[in-house]
């Protein structure tokens, strides 16, 4: 990012953070005008259509929508349209199925949190506490990952490494934590919702503006597909060229000691019996992500079309090129551990062909399919069905003012998601030809790189657009973090302290306990995020699946099925939780047991996708199944309790 853009980005960021603080201050003033707990944790059930729509959309879209999703499109192509396809029904499913009824049930019981609803509907303290513990367990794990992502964005945006060298991540983390914990603790639910609205608009506007600009620059989708198709079987490796079997050690610029950016393409010819050839092209880079040199390696094939090239042959050919001495210090074998030079022949499986970008299932670097049939089915459960079961989104369905509000919000989010998700696919398919050299390890930054590239060819005033794109993932992370922070503090203050330990607590104590809990949880998560574990993305997927498998069946059956019993509810929650836990960490447990008992552990534990279906599918099947079966064979709830929630006479 150049200096001009950086300055504009920093100013945009500061304006944005200032706006967030202002919203928190306005929101705090409203806290004194109604019941503290109802206002602080649920906005006094007064959300309007726009607020509900945008808080729902922003909370559902975590940082992944603007980092991980674009990176996947860039890496695997059109199959990501299928990966995200169930978003066509996500708004009407996640809001329309539970929304109105859950809101009514929460009003009847005076519930403020999801554990509140379950405790009252089934008259079970155990259920309420189990729900609370589950929320805390999954949410804390998720927050550590989100805090780390937020800290990295702050660190990069403000270029903190320039000022704090070794402690730049720590400073990024502290700045992120102070901002998000302050406005969440001080402003409560309403501040979170208002900032979500602002963040939702930032995210939506960013995508909507970027689509026509990038498609124009790329020459349209037809041209993009033509380029991918006509330049087919190749794999573009990273700028640093450290993938596959060769590592290119570049000559350092004499004064700056910076590496010269080089893009490396390995091209597999369609025809058999081709000769190995190498071509070095110098280019004029248009931005930071463009290489100054492209090395095109046309790989040799045998009579069956299989690649038959040794890394050593490529190395020798490049060394013979006249540009070699000017560009390269040396070339080494990347995986040549013993220094012998005996590197295996390059495998054709390493190469992603043009057709793999245009058709499914997408190909990973190890040649395995990215999105096979089982995953295609599972992802319709993952987004549309499991999205209903997230406590962070369910609590928003308890907060709207009237039925009409929900109707308008579903209407709004339907169009919002249609304008965001398919266009994101178009943008990053086009980016594949506009910016073909984004390294695999930097794919998460593709949103920022694409935005920077687009505006670099426009006037300075458009650079504010790039700043908005840098802010979009930050906004998405903040909108997830703030609702999670509030969910933990409401669980602790409301479900554990007020409803279990001290029901007669005064409002003043509740008020300070709420502020303090939000602050303390934020501080603890910040400390945990100073040394986050490596498998954070795994934890995020695990927590999303865990929430759905634990909470969806019990909530759905609890509000739509009068015969659901408290035993059935407990069986459903415990069954769903255990299924997800077992499928995600089952192999890991076996691996640990093996290591303690002296057995061989030379294998990598992984998630168990039984029959090729994602654990979320099995979690939902088990939780719904156990909820229904155990309810049919257990003691029914008292009739007056059931009638309170299902009968007109009591309803009126």
């Amino acid at each position, binding site marked *: 990012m150049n200096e001009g853009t950086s300055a504009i980005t920093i100013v945009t960021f500061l304006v944005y953070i200032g706006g967030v603080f202002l919203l928190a201050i306005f929101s705090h003033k409203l806290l004194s005008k109604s*019941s503290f707990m109802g206002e602080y944790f649920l906005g006094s059930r007064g959300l309007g259509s726009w607020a509900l729509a945008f808080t729902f959309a922003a909370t559902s879209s975590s940082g992944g929508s603007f980092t991980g999703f674009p990176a996947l499109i860039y890496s695997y192509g*059109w199959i990501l349209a299928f990966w995200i*396809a169930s978003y066509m029904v996500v708004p*009407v*499913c996640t809001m329309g199925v539970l929304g109105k009824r859950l809101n009514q049930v929460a009003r009847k019981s005076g519930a403020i949190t999801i554990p509140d609803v379950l405790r009252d509907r089934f008259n079970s303290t155990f259920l309420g506490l189990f729900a609370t513990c589950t929320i805390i367990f999954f949410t804390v794990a998720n927050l550590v990952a989100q805090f780390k992502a937020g800290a990295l964005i702050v660190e990069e945006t403000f270029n903190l490494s320039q000022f704090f060298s070794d402690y730049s991540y720590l400073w990024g983390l502290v700045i992120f934590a102070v901002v998000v914990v302050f406005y969440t603790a001080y402003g409560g639910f309403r501040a979170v919702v208002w900032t979500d609205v602002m963040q939702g608009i930032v995210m939506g506007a960013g995508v909507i503006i970027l689509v026509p600009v990038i498609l124009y620059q790329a020459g349209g989708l037809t041209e993009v597909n033509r380029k991918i198709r006509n330049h087919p079987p190749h794999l573009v490796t990273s700028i640093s060229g450290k993938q596959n079997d060769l590592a290119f050690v570049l000559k350092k610029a004499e004064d700056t000691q910076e590496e010269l950016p080089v893009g490396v393409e390995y091209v597999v010819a369609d025809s058999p019996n081709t000769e190995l050839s190498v071509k070095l092209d110098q280019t004029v880079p248009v931005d930071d992500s463009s290489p100054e040199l492209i090395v095109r390696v046309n790989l040799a094939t045998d009579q069956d079309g299989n690649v038959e090239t040794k890394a050593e042959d490529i190395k020798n050919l490049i060394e013979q090129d006249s540009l070699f001495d000017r560009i390269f210090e040396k070339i080494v074998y990347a995986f040549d551990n013993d220094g012998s030079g005996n590197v295996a022949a390059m495998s054709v499986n390493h190469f992603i062909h043009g057709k793999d970008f245009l058709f499914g299932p997408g190909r990973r670097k190890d040649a395995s399919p990215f999105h096979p049939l089982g995953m295609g089915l599972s992802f319709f459960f993952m987004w549309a069905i499991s999205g209903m079961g997230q406590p962070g989104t369910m609590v928003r369905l308890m907060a709207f003012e*009237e039925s009409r509000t929900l109707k308008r919000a579903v209407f709004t989010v339907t169009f919002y998601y249609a304008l965001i998700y398919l266009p994101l696919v178009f943008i990053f398919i086009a980016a594949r030809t506009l910016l073909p050299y984004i390294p695999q390890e930097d794919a998460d930054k593709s949103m920022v790189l694409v935005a920077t590239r687009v505006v670099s060819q426009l006037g300075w005033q458009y650079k504010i657009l790039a700043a908005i794109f840098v802010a979009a993932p930050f906004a998405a992370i903040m909108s997830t973090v703030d609702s999670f922070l509030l969910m933990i503090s409401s669980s602790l203050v409301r479900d554990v302290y007020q*409803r279990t330990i001290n029901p007669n607590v005064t409002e003043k104590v509740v008020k300070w306990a709420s502020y303090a809990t939000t602050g303390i949880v934020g501080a603890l998560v910040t400390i945990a995020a100073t040394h986050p574990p490596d498998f954070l993305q795994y934890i995020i997927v695990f927590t999303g699946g865990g929430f759905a498998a634990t909470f969806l069946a019990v909530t759905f059956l609890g509000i739509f099925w009068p015969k659901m019993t408290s035993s059935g509810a407990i069986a459903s929650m415990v069954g769903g939780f255990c299924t997800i836990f077992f499928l995600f960490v089952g192999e890991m447990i076996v691996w640990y047991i093996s290591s303690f008992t002296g057995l061989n552990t030379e*294998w990598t534990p*992984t998630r*168990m996708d039984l029959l090729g279906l994602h654990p979320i599918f099995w979690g939902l099947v088990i939780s719904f199944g156990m909820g229904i079966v155990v309810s049919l064979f257990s003691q029914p709830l008292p009739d007056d309790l059931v009638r309170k929630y299902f009968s007109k006479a009591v309803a009126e």
Partner: protein
Amino acid sequence: MPDTSSTYDDPLFLHSRREAFFVLGLWLFCMVWSVTYCYRNGYLSYAEPKPSLTEEMPGIVKGIRSLPTVGQIIGPQMEGRERSLDDFHSPLGLGIPDWVFYGIAMPWLVCIGVSVWWCLFFFQEDDLGKSEQPS
């Protein structure tokens, strides 16, 4: 046990249950359509992963990883045409591959229409009732 179903007559409960089942029906239809169409028309032939097995693995892990996948079980019945770059085309010149256009973009447009209809004509604007004070 006496039949109590007739006493479960809260209008909001009945309306929202009807609305929920309609939405779940829409979800099911979209899933069946998109998965079938995209798999039959947009997938290359090597669509299923091979289990990652090593000699050192405990038997239970090997056993679970060796189970067949849904794709291996029902995939052969669902297989459509073999795709190649030669038959790649994009309807209406929009640049969207045919399998994405008919398997995802078209149903997405239909879903927008159905969702709007659901909001405007199917959804009942029921009274949510008064909110009890938090206990």
